[in-house]
């Protein structure tokens, strides 16, 4: 039986900051940094936003759009590397906030930036086996970069939620494939506030190797090649990596048109590829074929081969905020207010 996406929703906080403004504070060429990363602005969560609130907002839109009864949800998995609690699940709060409790299973996933795609695969198994009717997969983050670090120019906040089911599919997931190795390119140790990374090592042996190998594996499994797809979405830690890997694999800019959102909202980590997919679904036509290749440091890639169904045109995709509004709108902040919002100002005390 087919398994796929029944509905979806995305959420990105309203505030923005530019690389130029960040560079101004650190005496660096912020505009140059933004240009080299292909990041024009990044989103900033308000002081009262976190991964739980972002996940809830995205899922509420998904449930309303699809007119899904929350009591029919059998599982909620939230993928993030910025869960507000070290011990106490994000997923239980989200489940309660959308009215899905108590007869469901829930858990938090963590695999750097690909925990959300891992959640989709888990839901595919549960839904495909008939154990549950709907599974919810969410990828969301309020990522942080240490002040002045290169990550600070791109690390942002946002997320997307997908309802995985068997009926009324707007996009059928035909195949999925993964590529996983032990590669120490980016990490955050227990109790550490900011992540660490291995500089240029995050490129070739990490992002590029895993994304290209996973995509090639998907082509083998699905019997496809780049020209078979109308849309492609890659993980997007910045605006340049996905463009480069897309070109290496043989995709055109037109195929990446909707899937690339990081230049306008920054790197939303676990939300990045999934917000890109949400943007593609906002514009997809029936029979469009879509390739998604996520990436998480540590490291691994998950790929999905989807095709949009006739029902994609029947879903009320205008309900809630389409992703394009998040890309175009926002309230720009000066660095001082951004630092206050992100808790970067030492307030005294312990």
């Amino acid at each position, binding site marked *: 039986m087919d398994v796929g996406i029944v509905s979806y929703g995305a959420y990105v906080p*309203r505030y923005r900051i530019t690389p130029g403004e960040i560079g101004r504070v650190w005496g660096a060429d912020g505009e140059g940094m933004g240009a080299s990363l292909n990041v024009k602005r990044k989103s900033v969560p*308000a*002081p*009262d*936003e*976190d991964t*739980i*609130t972002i996940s*809830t*907002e995205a899922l*509420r839109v998904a*449930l*309303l*759009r*699809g*007119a*899904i*009864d*929350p*009591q*029919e949800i059998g599982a909620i998995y939230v993928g993030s590397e910025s869960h*507000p*609690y070290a011990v106490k699940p994000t997923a239980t*709060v989200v489940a*309660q*906030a959308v*009215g899905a409790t108590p007869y469901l299973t829930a858990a938090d996933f963590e695999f750097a930036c690909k925990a959300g795609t891992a959640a989709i695969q888990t839901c595919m198994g549960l839904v495909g086996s008939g154990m549950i009717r709907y599974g919810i997969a969410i990828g969301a983050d309020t990522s942080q970069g240490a002040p002045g670090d290169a990550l600070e120019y791109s690390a942002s906040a946002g997320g997307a939620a997908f309802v995985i089911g068997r009926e*009324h599919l707007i996009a059928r997931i035909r195949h999925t494939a993964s590529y996983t190795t032990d590669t120490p390119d980016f990490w955050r140790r227990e109790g550490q506030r900011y992540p660490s990374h291995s500089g240029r090592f995050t490129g070739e042996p990490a992002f590029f190797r895993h994304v290209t190998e996973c995509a090639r594996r998907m082509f083998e499994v699905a019997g496809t090649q780049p020209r078979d797809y109308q849309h492609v979405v890659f993980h997007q830690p910045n605006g340049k990596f996905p463009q480069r890997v897309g070109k290496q694999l043989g995709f055109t800019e037109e195929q990446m048109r909707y899937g690339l959102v990081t230049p306008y909202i920054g790197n939303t980590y676990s939300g990045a590829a999934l917000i890109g997919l949400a943007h593609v679904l906002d514009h997809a036509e029936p029979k469009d074929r879509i390739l998604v290749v996520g990436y998480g440091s540590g490291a691994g890639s998950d790929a999905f081969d989807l095709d949009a169904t006739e*029902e994609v045109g*029947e*879903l*009320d995709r205008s*309900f*809630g905020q389409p992703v394009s509004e998040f890309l175009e709108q926002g*309230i720009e902040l000066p660095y001082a207010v951004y630092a*206050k*919002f992100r808790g970067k100002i030492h307030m005294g005390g312990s």
Partner: protein
Amino acid sequence: MATTIARYWRETPRRYNLGGSRCTVCRTIYFPPRSVCPSCSTHRQSLGKMEPFQLSGEGEVYSFCTVHDAAEGFEMEVPYVLALVKTREGPLLTGQVVDLPAERVRIGLKVRATFRKLREEGKAGVIHYGYKFSPAEEPPPHRRPGRSSEPSRSGTPAPEEGRVRA
């Protein structure tokens, strides 16, 4: 601390989901929920006849004030706006208006409920969540979302008009 956790936990349905109540005798909607209806001619008439009712979260600013001297835990958000919001179903709710500079909040501003952190019990304590309001200059039309080709499969009752008492 334990008392605060228990109190917040008991209020979860109303704080997370705007869960109110409706009198099935006179159709008056209440938020917070009530177990008897003070609008009915004799309160006993409504005993056992109150039903859960979920507000849509849509409404407009009825009145507001700007807070410059923050309550504990809100220091990072000064100045912030506390508003009385007239919901579509009628009850007046008190809540913070977020995602809009304080000077742009006005009476009549269309808002919708959004899920946010309300407060944290210190750096190591529990985080409390609930509703606030964000601007909705173009609120979703009063229609049932879903697919155009079939009736809604949602189990959530559609908001209905009714007599209202906040």
